[in-house]
């Protein structure tokens, strides 16, 4: 270890110690309150150390990063907002409703599924001392989120009539649904619906909010600084402070971690992550299911040869999924079963794993008269591993007699021309972790352009029915039937789910305890 790192570590510990002494009694009092229903202990027999400032590095958006997270498209914009503002809730499969509530006490669903009632947790305060009420939630949802152009917020706007949302007293908000759905809690509590004060229009550094941390500084493209908010509802963070840094390049992020400039590096490329495996000072902390990114190949059903279900099945049987996991991700990924949303409660995990069967694939191609067919697979480096996956897929296809080739676009091109993208015969793409049925209804139903020619009103209806079913058993059965159709006849090959490859300095803990792993939260994090 270099002298430089020793000195940095020493300075940080020294500063943290002094700060802990200064706020001693307040800290003890703070530690005694905790969010109900969440144990928050990082491991058996250990209690997290209090104090210190954690520094974490993310891919940012450069100078276009903005405090207005409703319009900020980078991952860092959302991570920053999640440290700063209160949240409606996070997904939590172990919770009674499948979620863990934040500023809410709970969400009630009307018997006829026509409306959701959000019950506000009493006593939540903003940093200026004012109480959080239904007006704040209403403003955050209907005035701000409803106007957002970002997909994460559109998921709610596509399911709830945010324009007709209204307050019912100080502690209740009623959200009408656009069509009957029973899985709305999973949508509202994905960790991205954040709450700011009623009337907020311009997001400023100094504005009061109610998240675990108070923003103290922000420089777009460089980073932001926070201090702990001691009156945070539920539980007070262990850390005194937090610094979120914007470092675009994967190697540079890893370099900042191993060089001791940051304590946590988000979303590294598989190759970069592998170089860290031998470093004794850091450890890998990949995200876990359901927060895995699905890597997929879209087969365009509106053109030959993919209008023939036998060809589509042949392409699915041709993939050597295990080889992809081992070669591209060095074993650090999960095998997919040609359905998105692995690990979500509504994912159809009862369907058997598709086999690797080149023999049968060849026979199917022959039967369909597509033997020796020529296809070009277009993809780009939009997410690490995508191009390597496409290269392997093309090799697999050649083995079943397809004359396949890869066209790799430069970064930023694949989705830039969307009409051209959705007209591709075969596209290498990726799927963000979102519940299975709601994402189907939004992106695949009704012949949407991103469905690549999939147009099956019966399956659309089945999904809508499943989502409108209150009996979990029955909903599951309907949802599985809909996904089975996609599995049998669908035009999506999803061979691999890869984690976000995060890494942290040894001893840093509690980051992955936040259930919204894709965009980490630091409210329970602690330093060594």
């Amino acid at each position, binding site marked *: 270890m270099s002298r430089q790192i020793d000195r940095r570590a020493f300075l940080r510990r020294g500063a943290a110690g002094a700060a802990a002494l200064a706020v001693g009694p307040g800290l003890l009092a703070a530690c005694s309150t905790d969010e109900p229903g969440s144990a928050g202990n990082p491991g058996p027999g250990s209690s997290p150390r209090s104090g210190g400032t954690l520094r974490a590095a993310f891919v940012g958006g450069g100078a*276009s990063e*903005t405090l207005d997270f409703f319009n900020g498209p980078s991952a860092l914009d959302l991570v920053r907002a999640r440290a700063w503002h209160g949240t409606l809730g996070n997904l939590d499969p172990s919770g009674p409703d499948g979620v863990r509530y934040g500023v809410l006490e709970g969400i009630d669903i009307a018997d006829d599924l026509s409306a959701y009632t959000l019950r506000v947790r009493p006593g939540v305060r903003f940093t200026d001392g004012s109480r959080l009420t239904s007006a704040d939630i209403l403003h955050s949802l209907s005035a701000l989120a409803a106007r957002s*152009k970002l997909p994460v917020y559109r998921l709610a706007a596509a399911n709830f009539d945010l324009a007709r949302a209204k307050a019912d007293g100080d502690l209740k908000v009623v959200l009408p649904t656009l069509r009957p759905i029973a899985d709305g809690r999973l949508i509202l509590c994905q960790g991205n619906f954040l709450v700011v004060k009623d009337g907020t229009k311009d997001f400023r550094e100094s504005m009061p909010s109610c998240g675990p941390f108070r923003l103290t500084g922000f*420089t777009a493209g460089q980073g932001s600084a926070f201090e702990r908010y001691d009156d945070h509802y539920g539980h007070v963070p262990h850390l005194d402070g937090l610094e979120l840094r914007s470092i675009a390049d994967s190697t*540079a992020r890893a370099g900042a971690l191993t060089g001791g400039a940051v304590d946590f590096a988000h979303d590294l490329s598989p190759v970069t992550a592998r170089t860290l495996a031998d470093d004794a000072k850091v450890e890998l902390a990949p995200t876990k299911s359901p927060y895995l990114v699905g890597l997929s190949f879209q087969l365009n059903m509106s053109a030959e040869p993919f209008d023939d279900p036998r060809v589509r099945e042949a392409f699915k049987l041709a993939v050597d999924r295990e080889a992809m996991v081992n070669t591209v991700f060095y074993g650090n990924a999960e095998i997919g079963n040609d359905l998105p949303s692995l690990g979500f409660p509504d994912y159809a995990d009862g369907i058997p794993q598709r086999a690797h069967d080149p023999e049968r694939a060849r026979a199917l191609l022959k039967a369909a008269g597509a033997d020796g067919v020529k296809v070009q697979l277009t993809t780009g480096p939009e997410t690490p591993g995508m191009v390597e996956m496409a290269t392997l897929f093309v090799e697999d296809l050649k083995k079943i007699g397809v004359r396949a080739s890869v066209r790799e676009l430069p970064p930023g091109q694949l*989705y830039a021309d969307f009409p051209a993208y959705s007209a591709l015969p075969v596209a290498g793409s990726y799927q963000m972790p979102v519940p299975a049925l709601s994402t189907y209804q939004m992106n695949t139903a009704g012949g949407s352009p991103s469905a690549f020619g999939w147009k099956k009103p019966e399956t659309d209806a089945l999904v809508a029915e499943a989502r409108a079913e209150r009996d979990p058993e029955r909903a599951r059965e309907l949802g599985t039937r809909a996904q089975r159709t996609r599995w049998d006849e669908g035009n999506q090959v999803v061979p691999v789910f890869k984690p976000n490859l995060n890494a942290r300095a040894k001893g840093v803990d509690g980051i992955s305890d936040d259930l919204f792993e894709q965009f980490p939260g630091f409210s329970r994090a602690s330093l060594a």
Partner: protein
Amino acid sequence: MNLLAFAARRLAGAVVLLVLLSAAVFAATAVLPGDAVSAVAGVDASAAQRAEVRAGLGLDRPAVQRYADWAAGAVRGDLGRGFVGERPVADVLATRLPNSLLLAALTLAVTAPLATLLGLWTGLRGGVADRVVSTSAQILAAVPEFVVAALLVAVLAVWLEVLPRVSVIPLGGTPLDVPDALVLPVLTLSAVGLAVATRLLRASVADTAATPYCEAARLNGVRGVRLAVRHILPNAAGPAVQALTLTTGALVGSAVVVENVFDYPGIGRELQLAVAARDVPMVQGIATALVAVMLAVLVLGDVCARLLGAREGHGR
């Protein structure tokens, strides 16, 4: 023609060029496949949502009209706002351009004296030393910046651990707050710039040394440092300044690469991000500003070269 008139004429030419190039940049962004809609609306937006976003960004209007609007604003000093994140372009320039200029200035401060020394040495001495330096310079000039950067990182940051691998600037601070973070980017840029400048200077020095004027000085017994400083350098200075000017132009291209490798918060990194997001106002503003800086350097170089040439009575 006097120097002022010369400078004024060059400046006027530069302004015309700036207008033409800004139009060319706009045309290039218009020809690029796709637009900012995917970056703003997200990959999985429906056709209707995309159309709405496109109209909101004003991308449904003809390109000529969009350029005219942009140019009208730019003349008033209003460069508009970026599509992504909606930051004023002028703000981004004000925070990022100085960082890049700092990098360029430091690089020039390293390159100029070193290149002068090496150029003089090799140009006057010839022989083995010349061949070794010239060949090394040629090889170095041919190596991509990111390879040079990777080598420097491997040796100085990973192996010897004397320098940080990444330029992590303190929040709210400037790169000057962490001088050691500037060393690797400046070294990388200098290595590439030095190679080019040395070769250009060497040629200029060799040409000057071969003139009858220098021959006469040598015959009069003027040798070594005195010959170099009194006779060769002033005469080679004009072409040398032009050589350095050209090196400065090449620096802009290298800076984009180097800023990304070290995550240095400069304008080159912003340009790369803006192009990837098809953020037309941001690309347009940054590219035009960079073109303006380069044209200014070229005009300044021309004026300096003329000034130096005129003093020695060799003005054309």
